[in-house]
């Protein structure tokens, strides 16, 4: 009896805790008031409209998009062959490599960011954009390797030999029979990498500099100066963008099978 009452209650609490903040932000973004507040004061779309007029948001959105798409793409170009090699060949150090590649996930972002800044960006005089790009590639790489590894593990390796015996080269076999069969895994890795990169704060915080900021960093900077609901409006828009991407991925690719 107690269980029957308690279970829905616990479920409600957990869901409320997970979705609550999101609902508050969404509600706040439709506010008519001048400051970020909850409950919202009145209803308007003005802050949503304002998001599109803030120039720094437009610039940092473009930077974040470039980093998320480009960085994830590079991570996949590096990660797919790495995952393939580790799954198909008995390499002496493959477990070590797997661990090292996972390091950016395990080590706190603050430390990664600080270390990159102190020992890589400053001594070598690397520009802000290339530094951000390299950092985001490294951050996404673990996801690329892991997700692609998972889908390679489900694929028999003898189909490559079959392709070779039917006249294909080894490389051709990779493109003709391996790649098409791990397509779902690659797209899942891309989405996961994209979202990770796009929402990344601590590393970008250290590496952003004059004129070049990622969107989350820009939002923090904006909030320090202007405390209006446009940040909530922007957050809502980004959240809906993420939901949309994941929804489409699930709908067409069965995203959840790979993550």
């Amino acid at each position: 009896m107690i269980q029957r009452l308690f279970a829905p209650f616990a479920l409600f609490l957990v869901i409320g805790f997970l979705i609550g903040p999101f609902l508050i932000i969404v509600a706040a973004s439709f506010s008519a008031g001048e400051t970020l507040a909850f409950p919202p004061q009145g209803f308007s779309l003005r802050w949503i409209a304002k998001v599109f007029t803030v120039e720094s948001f437009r610039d940092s959105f473009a930077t974040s998009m470039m980093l998320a798409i480009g960085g994830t793409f590079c991570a996949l170009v590096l990660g797919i062959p790495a995952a393939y090699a580790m799954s198909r060949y008995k390499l002496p150090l493959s477990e070590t490599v797997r661990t090292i590649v996972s390091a950016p996930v395990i080590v706190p972002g603050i430390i990664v960011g600080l270390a990159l800044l102190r020992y890589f960006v400053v001594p070598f005089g690397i520009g802000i954009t290339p530094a951000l790009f390299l950092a985001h590639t490294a951050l996404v790489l673990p996801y690329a390797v892991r997700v692609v590894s998972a889908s390679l593990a489900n694929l028999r390796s003898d189909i490559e030999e079959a392709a070779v015996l039917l006249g294909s080269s080894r490389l051709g076999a990779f493109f003709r029979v391996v790649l098409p069969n791990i397509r779902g895994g690659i797209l899942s890795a891309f989405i996961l990498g994209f979202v990770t990169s796009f929402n990344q704060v601590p590393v970008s915080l250290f590496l952003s500099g004059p004129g070049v900021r990622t969107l989350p960093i820009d939002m923090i900077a904006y909030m320090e100066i202007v405390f209006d609901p446009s940040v909530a409006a922007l957050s809502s828009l980004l959240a809906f963008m993420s939901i949309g991407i994941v929804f489409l991925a699930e709908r067409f690719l069965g995203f959840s099978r790979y993550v």
Partner: protein
Amino acid sequence: MSDLDFLSLEKLTLAYGDSIAVKELDLSIRKGELVAFLGPSGCGKTTTMRAIAGLLAPASGRIRLDGADITRVSANRRSVGLVFQSYALFPHLSVFENVAFGLRLKKLPAADIEKRVNAGLKSVGLTSFASRKPAELSGGQQQRVALARSMVMEPKVLLLDEPLSNLDARLRLEMRTELQRVQKETGVTMIFVTHDQGEALSLADRIVVMKGGTIEQIGTPEEIYNRPASAFVADFVGFENIFELSGGKLKAANGLAELPGPVPSAAGLAWRPRMVTLGSGPFRGTVRGASFSGDSREYLLDTPLGPIKAEIDASLPAHAPDTELAFDLPVEKAAELKRFG
């Protein structure tokens, strides 16, 4: 080159790293022959097949096919087909595209490809499945797709890895017939690998029995079944009473045992359970176990020679456990082993 050595392996040594899997193998296979590589796992049969396919580079030795040395020819230019044990169909392609895969790589005209794929699918009875994905087919159907996929390439040699082992009894008979028909119709040289002596005996023109990376015996199914050359082959094809000979006497558990009558000069003698005479003869043993299998009864006897297995018609009276029985190992029925070991 004649048709007698269409495919020949010359002193072929194969290794995985430092461990040698196949040692100085010599073998000639005729054009259009259906050969079985028979042996327990680890005997080198699959390794040899992979080397013929070009998936494994030999450590030394040569492979010749149709007059050309193909030892260093890469797997994709050998005209050797392989039907994998797991079938290895491409999961993302339809049945039609699976069969068309190799033909498309050859850049044949589309109309040609369609014609050949359709003929290939028709020959394995899968015309109506052309647009299905492999996952939507049964194991037997997948195997026939794999067979068609290899056969449309018109290979000089078709290799099959354990072609019947994944199929149930009814499909096995069907596939056996299918393979023999394809072989007779196309005249393709076929080699299949199996650990099942029944498969090898019923399907092959010639059997190559392998053990520990070398050939134990090569012969027709009748030769292998009736005249095994070694104790290993004898054991593999169901001779359960195997004895080494020493100076015309059996090397038995209790020392050397005299056999009645003249003894051939062989390294050993072997009897199937069927060949043991039960109820009369110079030896005595105690019944330790019995099993009934419909047509016959098999007895395990505890004898001074060691354990003996004997089989008699089920219509004969049964012997109770612990009964002492006379038995004979008739020399004239025994298989003479040239080598022991």
